[in-house]
């Protein structure tokens, strides 16, 4: 077997599709590209591709990672060329590399995600007050957040998942927030949830509904150095 690790994007054109939609779109592109991809055995064979982390509806990304298993090896150049031509608008294949077949699944190695959130600031808001809200969040020891889902309510501490302080900049009417979030085996927090907590509990004076979220990277970190999973040895 031949396992390829790829770095791909999710662009503005497809910002509002779900992770499942995204995965399906890539699957179809691989099929169109006539690549010798491997399928699982059984009644309902599915293509052997695996992603590092799901991306929510409304979130774009600079760098997503996907492993693809091929029945027979093709050169990396050929793979990039053939698949690249079939990808729909909004998905770009940035790089691909063969990795060891037994290499740990992407899902298990990625433990850090970086995001940029661009969110409209309410009129006549003092930039200082925005910075103040962020400071307070950064200094808080814990930030309780109740996550509601069809399965019920669950309380989490947002700070458990914040790897670094949030940074904020103001640019023509928008607040640009940079966040680094931990992905742990027991869970994580979504950037939208962090924003919700900032608005609700730290009086961040922004129009939350108008936010545009962009994932700038996914990494593996041992606490000292963050490495994209495609650069892992």
């Amino acid at each position: 077997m031949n396992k390829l690790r790829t770095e791909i994007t999710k662009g503005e054109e497809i910002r509002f599709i779900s992770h499942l939609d995204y995965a399906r779109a890539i699957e179809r592109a691989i099929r169109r590209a006539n690549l010798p991809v491997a399928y699982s055995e059984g009644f309902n064979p599915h293509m052997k591709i695996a992603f590092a982390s799901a991306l929510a509806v409304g979130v774009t990304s600079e760098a997503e990672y996907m492993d693809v298993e091929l029945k027979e090896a093709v050169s990396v150049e050929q793979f990039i060329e053939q698949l690249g031509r079939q990808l729909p608008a909004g998905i770009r294949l940035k790089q691909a590399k063969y990795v060891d077949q037994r290499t740990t699944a992407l899902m298990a190695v990625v433990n850090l995600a970086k995001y940029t959130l661009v969110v409209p600031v309410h009129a006549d808001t003092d930039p200082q007050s925005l910075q103040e809200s962020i400071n307070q969040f950064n200094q808080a020891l814990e930030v309780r957040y109740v996550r509601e889902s069809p399965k019920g309510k669950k309380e989490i501490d947002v700070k458990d998942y914040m790897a670094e302080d949030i940074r904020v900049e103001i640019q023509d009417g928008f607040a640009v927030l940079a966040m680094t979030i931990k992905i742990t085996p027991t869970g994580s927090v979504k950037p939208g949830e962090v924003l919700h907590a900032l608005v609700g509990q730290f009086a961040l004076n922004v129009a939350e509904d108008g936010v545009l979220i962009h994932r700038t990277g996914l990494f593996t970190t041992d606490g000292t150095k963050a490495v994209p999973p495609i650069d892992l040895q």
Partner: protein
Amino acid sequence: MIKLDPTIMNRVTKPARYTGNELNSVKKDHNRVKVTVALALPDVYEVGMSNLGLKILYEILNDRSDTAAERVYAPWVDMEAEMRKRQIPLYSLETFTPVKDFDLVGFSLQYEMIYSNVLNMLDLAEIPLLAAERTEVHPFVVGGGPCAYNPEPVADFFDFFVIGEGEEVIEDVVAVLAEWKEKGRPEGRNGFLKRLAAVQGVYVPSFYDVSYHNDGTVATVTPNCIEAKPVITKRVVKDLNTVKFATKPVVPYLDIVHDRIMLELFRGCTRGCRFCQAGVLYRPVRERTPEKLLNIAQQLVENTGYNEISLTSLSSADYSHLREIVTGLIERFSDKGVSVSLPSLRIDSFSIELAQQVQQVRKSGLTFAPEAGTQRMRDVINKGVTEQDLEQAVGAAFRQGWSSVKLYFMIGLPTETDEDVLGIADLAYKVLHLYKEIKGRRGAKVTVSVSSFVPKAHTAFQWFGQNHTAEIERKQQLLKSRLKDRGISFNYHDSRTSFLEGVFSRGDRKLGQVLLAAWRAGARFDGWSEYFKYDVWLEAFEKCAIDPYFYANRERSEEEILPWQHIASGVDKEFLVQEYQQAIQECFTPDCRRDTCSACGVCPGLSVEVLDWGNQAYE
């Protein structure tokens, strides 16, 4: 160009319904084409995107260098609210152009319960609802699809209709439009419509005056200009092998209703079920050749990347070279992870064998449509299926390892007695017991799905008085009380929806005002039970002093002028009258596909012929 505020997209459910950019969508510069067409399906994206007819028209139109065709669907209620709040007009998904800026807006009218959505979309598009109120600045609004065969209830809202198959007529329409525009739009809107009226299959309702008798029935339908023909005959494609098919359809991101390749094996079905409107409208049967189909499938797999090919036709199992096609498709595509599926199974062991071959997912079960519970009733509707056929087919399925079966039936059919209704339950139990007999244990799951019969225009039952809702509900309860086994699940349709569908399917022009009143009072997405507001409709009828029962529940005489009499499907009235009599006498009429012609009139009348490779050779 409409620019969407992310605030809206962050708020609505499934925002990808509104953001376009799908693979194979075609974006053209409107300044470089002669004609722009918005193709609309008045339902939500996932339903609209699943319509095969529109996919075909989209491709035919966009293959023309002088035409741009784009898609538009009904925004879901949450999106509608946002659009109204911010005064965003309805726009197309390709170039985000307001629908009102197109030359032509075409609605595919698949069934009557989406009429309120048509009005709602026109309103969102800022196009006057009434054709009579549109001016030079507005697009022409055209309707097509099965409902166009009785367009009268929505006649006020459309500039024209296209009756029949669209592949060829759409190009005629575009040609007339392009020429009229180039000549400087002589005689304004009416000038275009008059030119268009010469095209076969085009119906311009404003060119006809309708008068009524005192009892409310139609007295006359009279052309009011020389261009209008007394009868509008449907368009029909002689040979499907020579027209374009959708080989490069838009591939959605969202999981739509039919999210797979749709391979149309043939058009038409002449089994002659007397309740079936499609069986009349799409006559005669015309098959594509196996070679053509394999070729189309190849292009579709290459252009879409879908992993499933669904063999769609009115009765796919009747295709003359089905085994050859199925085997051919599996051989060609299985190593690409592409599977084949048959949406409808004929009730025989051949179909089970095929289902086995294509390895249809077992858990979803097999679906059969005996349509009626007793042999007598099946003879009335000309469903040439016996209990033995069903037992054989289901038995074969159980032996092959299937354990769940879905059975489709109808109630409210002409001459139906309680015995016929209860026959449905008997059949369900027989299937249940058959499993035990074969397997030696319980464990079958039988789903009995019962719809209420709605008589449709142009069928043998077009004169029949539909069962009242109370009668339908009584029959539903009767059946429910008999279907108590935990191995059987029973579902049935809302009788009120069927009633309303019945009103509009055989209605006349007077219903336009009711539709308008109901839409004003909030009717939309009537086909979605959670949004169906029956009270709103009843109030609208009352307000307009229109009796809905007159349309749905009244038995018509054969002499009565039916509101759609000037629209011709090609099937003679005499044939339908005779079929209604045959029904009452419980007599069988054979399928003309491989048996003798039953002289319905289509072939000689429209100079077409049956194309079936089971009894004739092809080149």
